């Protein structure tokens, strides 16, 4: 490898005039780029309608609902919003505006109804989940999102459900994938997502093996390119694209079908 001093020498090896021109043009390009991007980042505020925001969460404070929501979150939301809800999922780098950071006071200040409406309707790269998830699943999701912020006091243990092995103050036990799949660990609410892929009750009922379409999308699609939001293409276009991907990337057929179902659920019109 060439030492840094030689790199500098190489950079300045042309006539000084060319270097100046190049520097100026590069800076101009950068300034224009950032200016355009700055405008893109200041997106219109997203406000739920007042009547939607006023709807109460039927599963508010229910630990079992939060645990179920955690599984749906890992499968459906973590790719963009990050494993801990900070808006830092693998897809986040390429998204503008950025996915919401659920740990911020701004999100904490939002009503459950507002969050429910937003994840149901979607906007821009945020897919609408009213078709992909049932109403119950979406409320569970909201209940779980409420546990991510620093003031996560919303979800309370359900009476009669053991917590953290019954030891007060002990670290709650993490629901392992196998437990979650069979639903044998209700009420066990982890403080953070487990280090392993938490594969819970499938968000989309019909699955290829244990993984749902959105999980398979999360695993496969970012391997070669940036994530594409489901509403970027129509249902028919997704069908063409998934067939293309099945051939080009040797995507197993069953997995491709599940991914297609997930993407078509939020496809553009």
């Amino acid at each position, binding site marked *: 490898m060439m030492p840094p001093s030689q790199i500098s020498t190489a950079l300045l090896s042309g006539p000084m005039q060319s270097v100046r021109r190049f520097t100026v*043009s590069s800076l101009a390009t950068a300034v224009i780029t950032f200016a355009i991007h700055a405008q893109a980042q200041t997106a219109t505020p997203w406000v739920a309608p007042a009547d939607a925001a006023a709807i109460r969460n039927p599963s508010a404070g229910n630990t079992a609902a939060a645990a179920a929501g955690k599984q749906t979150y890992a499968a459906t939301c973590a790719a963009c919003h990050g494993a801990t809800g900070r808006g830092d999922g693998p897809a986040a780098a390429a998204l503008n505006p950025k996915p919401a950071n659920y740990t911020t006071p701004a999100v904490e200040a939002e009503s459950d109804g507002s969050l429910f409406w937003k994840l149901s309707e979607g906007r821009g790269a945020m897919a609408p989940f009213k078709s992909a998830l049932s109403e119950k699943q979406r409320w569970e999701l909201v209940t779980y999102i409420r546990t991510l912020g620093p003031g996560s006091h919303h979800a309370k243990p359900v009476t009669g459900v053991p917590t953290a092995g019954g030891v007060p103050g002990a670290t709650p036990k993490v629901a392992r994938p196998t437990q979650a799949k069979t639903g044998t660990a209700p009420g066990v609410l982890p403080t953070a997502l487990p280090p392993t892929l938490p594969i819970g009750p499938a968000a989309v009922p019909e699955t290829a093996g244990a993984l749902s379409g959105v999980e*398979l999308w999360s695993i496969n699609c970012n*391997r070669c*390119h940036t994530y594409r939001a489901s509403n970027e293409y129509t249902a028919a276009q997704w069908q*063409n694209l998934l067939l*293309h991907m099945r051939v080009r*990337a040797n995507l197993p*057929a069953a997995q491709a079908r599940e991914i297609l179902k997930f993407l078509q659920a939020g496809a553009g019109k």
Partner: protein
Amino acid sequence: MQTIARVYFRILPALAASCIIGTGSPQSATAAVSDEDFNALKEAVQKLTEKVQTLEGVHEEDQAKIRDLQSKHDEAPLPAAQQVPDAKQFVPPSTGLEAPAATDLGGPLATHSFTIVGDAEVQFAKIAHKHGAFAFADFAPIFLFRANENILFEAGFDFVLQNNAPGGSGYTTTVNLSFATIDYLLNDYVTVTGGNMLLPLGTYSERSAGWLNKIPDNPMVRDILPGTGVGAQLRGAIPVGDKGSSVTYSAFAVNGPGSVDGTGNAGQLDTGGNVGLTLAGDTANLHGGMGWGGRIAFFHPWKAQHDLEVGISGMSSSWDDAGRRQYTAGVVDLAMHLGPSVEIKGEYVHTWVETDDLGTIKPNGWWVQAGYKLSGMLPDVPYLNNVELMGRYDTLSDAMGTRTNRGTVGAVYYLSNTLWLEGDYEWTGNHGPNPAPSNSLIFQLSYGF
């Protein structure tokens, strides 16, 4: 609805007539209507009202049945014979031709669907000792035609605008058919592909080139591999377990590489591929030997955003016009993600090329590339959380005395998930008589759609 309307039309005039009679008649006339007549009229009105209600009920039931039948009709797949008009009805009887019955077609029927995807790039380069300039503009659409669930035609073009050689005037627009294949998905595990194919030697040609790569130019070692070939291929994937793992395979037969000039005296391999057609219109292959090869790989995601893919691939073919000299290539490829922010991939390539004068030479090289998304470390810092740092090291030996090593550092700035700016600095070290291009600074704006 018509029945109800008819009933109403009968009742309303009667009621109107009653009102007129009632209001228009002198008071003395009121006394003329007997209770019996009044009751008879009242009974008639009541009967008509009941009849209307009955008809309305029947009407509602009919509507419900219609809706039910309509939904069943929409959900149920039509028999093939109903989907495609019977070809017989289009054949003039006088011709005496027997059109094949629709049911004879076999297989799923076509519902043609078309989509364009692809990418576009514009690049600015500053090469050491030369002035900086916009290097090219590139537009690479991919056309996808889907006939049904099993048949796909895909064709990729590459339109590139570049200046002519230094000292020359004007510019050149080149159009390449990057690939054009007909894919028949035989079942869940086997796809038959034919046409001009991107060859599965490693994964770079199929899944990393162009806008998919986060560094503007290709690893040098890709120059010693054919990128495409005309022929046929079997490929597919077999799931392993239920956590997303799979074994993938590809096996192909193509015309393989050729020689640069096609005169029979060539000493240089043409990895651009021998498509089997000469400019003179000769349909013969330049050499008689077919090229064979394939790839097998294992993909395993062990937890969220943590996965590994390892593959081994190769091909062997005659390459000179006489078909006497052999070209063989072997590639080991690896790609892994260690969390949402870290990506590492690379390939090792080794080739064996038989020559007349040098015996068997072994051009080889490798590359490894890593990326780190700053959003993993600085999720809340505006602008910086759009940056992915990139680094690559690649090396190439031509097996004739020249080895080139190149280091690349740079970054990708994501303006969106479809548009991003790449900036890289490359420094090159050469050992031998055939030096590669000098150090360079490259910016590229890429749009994937």
